[in-house]
């Protein structure tokens, strides 16, 4: 800070040039895409790849739903069905939701939000992307092997996943692909931590970081704690399959349930690794479109930290019915997660309260997130109670619960794309098509999930290709399939919107009158992001700059304003 004050008079600020023009020595076109270490280019690659994964996983989902629209479903065979739901879950969790959150949007937004020129390790960042891309290709290539893709469910429970029960190469490609994307996640976690810890702009203290950046930092820490465990587990599984170890095999003195412990020790933090970035997106969007600061900012940060802490102690709630875990401990830990999650929900409502809400597509998606997440969150509380878990475990009730959650995340992700897309491309998407897309997605989600809750309570197990024994379940399954088709239409509308709006509606620097630093620079930002930065005296530097005299109302003791005289601090 003092360095800045004592610095000589600021050099004249160069006129902003459109992104990457200063890079004219570098390669262009596909070569630029392949060799770039710019976080925005990598982030965009992540975005495109992960949205393609969303579409692939969505196609699997539609096939699954059509199969289940008749009790004796005959669209695909039993073997194909097992491959389809395995790869649907794997693609959506491993290749879409995570990489979209901490690969795509985090990569683009976090350095911009903290006023950094790039990620801390740009080349490591590029490596993360390529590991992710080739990991995805590796996992999906299982479909082209003789035995088909992996078919043991996305959780790959031992001993079903051993070489006797699942001999094919598809399973090995699944393990290999997951190892690669796992390393990609670990490297991104390292990168995000280092970026947030070391590259914050002058004045950007920890408690002036936007909530999105906070959530991504916590996500990155969770990644570093959880993913290595999965990686180790996958190596053990591979050794069991090919090198004759007996880690998960009873015959050699191993313990099959150990796999579940390892998997869920990663898998439950993973739930929050997926969810926290989307919580952060929604927090930013609700605040911006309500024209208010985030209500209970510090409470929000502490809620995020306590969710992360609790999430490391709840893994065995996926294993209540194994009969080999301590039920009360994992029950109370899981129930307690409802408290910080509830705080977040009320903070979101508090942010909208007495605001001036602008119903842009991004805001509609965020409101859709709130309602869908409310349903998924409340049904999750049931599952934290072992007796109720015995009752609903492995039925469609669980499927409905986590689809409410992940569809809420899809709504949040769409909000993020509509909100931050213009920053990275320089162009807005069509709002009318966006709103139609929202209604298809929101209504489709409820029509899709609500029948599944009822089916679960009526006893329909998950991962079944047919329900010939209970043909009366056809009606509810048909309704759910209709919902899935509505969701499919919404995805098509999104693609249509990109095509229709292609370079049509220039965004300008700050189309939403937003709060945070990324909206202070140009859209798209120049190669090293910023030519100048505003004073950073709160978590809303751009808002403070644009609306002097409208700072957040004080609460208790407020730090005295720092004595930086200039409105703008030139980037050294």
């Amino acid at each position, binding site marked *: 800070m003092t360095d800045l004050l004592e610095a000589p008079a600021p050099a004249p600020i160069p006129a902003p040039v459109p992104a990457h023009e200063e890079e004219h020595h570098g390669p262009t076109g596909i070569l630029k895409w392949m060799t770039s270490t710019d976080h925005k280019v990598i982030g965009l690659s992540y975005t495109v790849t992960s949205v393609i994964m969303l579409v692939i996983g969505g196609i699997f989902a539609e096939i699954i739903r059509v199969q289940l629209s008749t009790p004796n479903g005959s669209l695909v065979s039993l073997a194909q069905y097992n491959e389809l739901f395995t790869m649907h879950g794997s693609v959506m969790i491993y290749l879409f939701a995570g990489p979209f959150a901490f690969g795509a949007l985090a990569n683009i937004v976090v350095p911009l939000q903290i006023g950094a020129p790039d990620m801390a390790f740009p080349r490591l960042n590029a490596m993360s992307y390529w590991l992710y891309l080739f990991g995805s290709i590796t996992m999906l290539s299982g479909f082209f092997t003789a035995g088909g893709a992996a078919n043991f*469910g996305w959780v790959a429970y031992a001993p*079903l996943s051993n070489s006797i029960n699942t001999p094919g190469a598809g399973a090995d490609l699944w393990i290999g692909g997951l190892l690669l994307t796992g390393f990609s996640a670990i490297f991104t976690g390292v990168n995000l931590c280092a970026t947030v810890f070391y590259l914050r702009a002058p004045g950007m203290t920890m408690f002036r970081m936007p909530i999105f950046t906070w959530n991504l930092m916590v996500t990155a820490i969770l990644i570093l704690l959880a993913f290595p465990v999965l990686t180790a587990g996958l190596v053990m599984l591979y050794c069991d399959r090919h090198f004759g170890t007996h880690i998960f095999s*009873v015959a050699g003195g191993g313990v099959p349930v150990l796999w579940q412990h390892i998997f869920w020790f990663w898998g439950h933090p993973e739930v929050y690794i997926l969810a926290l970035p989307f919580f952060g997106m929604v927090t930013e969007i609700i605040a911006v479109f309500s024209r208010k600061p985030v209500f*209970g900012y510090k409470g929000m940060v502490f809620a995020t930290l306590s969710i992360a802490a609790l999430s490391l102690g709840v893994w065995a709630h996926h294993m209540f019915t194994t009969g080999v875990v301590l039920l009360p401990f994992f029950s109370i830990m899981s*129930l307690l997660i409802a408290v910080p999650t509830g705080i977040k929900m*009320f903070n979101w409502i508090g942010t909208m309260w007495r605001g001036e809400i602008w119903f842009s597509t991004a805001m509609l998606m965020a409101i859709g997130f709130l309602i869908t997440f409310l349903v998924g969150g409340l049904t999750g509380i049931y599952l934290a109670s072992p007796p109720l878990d*015995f009752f609903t475990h492995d039925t469609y009730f669980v499927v409905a619960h986590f689809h409410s959650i992940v569809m809420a995340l899809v709504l949040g992700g769409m909000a993020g794309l509509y909100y931050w897309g213009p920053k990275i491309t320089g162009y807005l998407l069509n709002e009318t098509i966006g709103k139609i897309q929202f209604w298809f997605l929101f209504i489709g989600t409820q029509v899709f999930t609500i029948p599944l809750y009822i089916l679960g*309570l009526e006893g329909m197990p998950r991962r079944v290709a047919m329900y010939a024994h209970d043909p009366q379940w056809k009606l509810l399954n048909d309704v759910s399939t209709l919902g899935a088709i509505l969701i499919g239409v919404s995805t098509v509308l999104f693609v249509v919107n990109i095509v229709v709006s292609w370079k049509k509606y220039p965004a300008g620097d700050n189309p939403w009158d937003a709060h945070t630093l990324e909206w202070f620079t140009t859209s798209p930002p120049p190669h090293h992001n910023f030519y100048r930065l505003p004073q950073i005296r709160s978590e809303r530097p751009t808002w403070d700059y644009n*609306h002097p005299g409208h700072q957040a109302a004080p609460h208790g003791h407020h730090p005295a304003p720092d004595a930086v005289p200039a409105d703008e601090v030139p980037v050294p």
Partner: protein
Amino acid sequence: MPSFGASPGATSSSRSVFHLWQWFSIGAVIVGGITLLLIIWAVLRYRRKGDNIPKQSQYHVPLETIYTIIPIIIVFALFAGTLVVENKETANPRTNVTIDVLAFQWGWKFTYPGSNALVYGQTTQDPVMEFPVNTNVHINLRSSDVIHGFYVHAFNFSRYALPGVLNQFTIRAQSTGTYFGQCTQLCGLYHSLMWFRVKVVSQSQYHAWLQTFNNPTAEAAAKAAATATKQQLSTLVPSKQTSSHGDN
């Protein structure tokens, strides 16, 4: 009280689970309803009408404290209810009837220690497990290959059949009838078809049913099946005793 989509089921613990379900649901409806109304109210009431900048309020510590403490109280209430039902459900009281259940790809084998009764069936042949009403029935659940899920909807209960682990639980059915059961844990190709049935009968019918196995053919079959099971499990567990983790 409304059922909230669940049903009381046929056993003493399924009824407790059903009541717990109802209490959880009442909480969920109240909390969810209030939250939903707040969201809808905020969205409709505070839609943008002009270019005003609203008051930039950010903190209200008393309010934030209230919506931290109330959920904690609710959570501990839910946990208390959970403990009561859980302890009831996982208790292993003295039992008169024991059934050994062996799950395998893709079917079930039910044997009754101390008698020749043996029921065995693959996929949709759905073998029928028979036991008397109003009696504590002790189930020893094992798997001979991969993980399976023993699930009877009418009992509001499921438990994994794990290779290398003996899982034990007690069922006390309170009404006679035939109930459908199914494997709920993905176990391979014919997972969708791994069915069974549970037939709860009166004491006298149960004893009459056991009598039907008292002939040389059934005896031989039971002996052969017992040997086969022992072999299957011993290839699975060469040296160690199967461990018991039924309680807690």
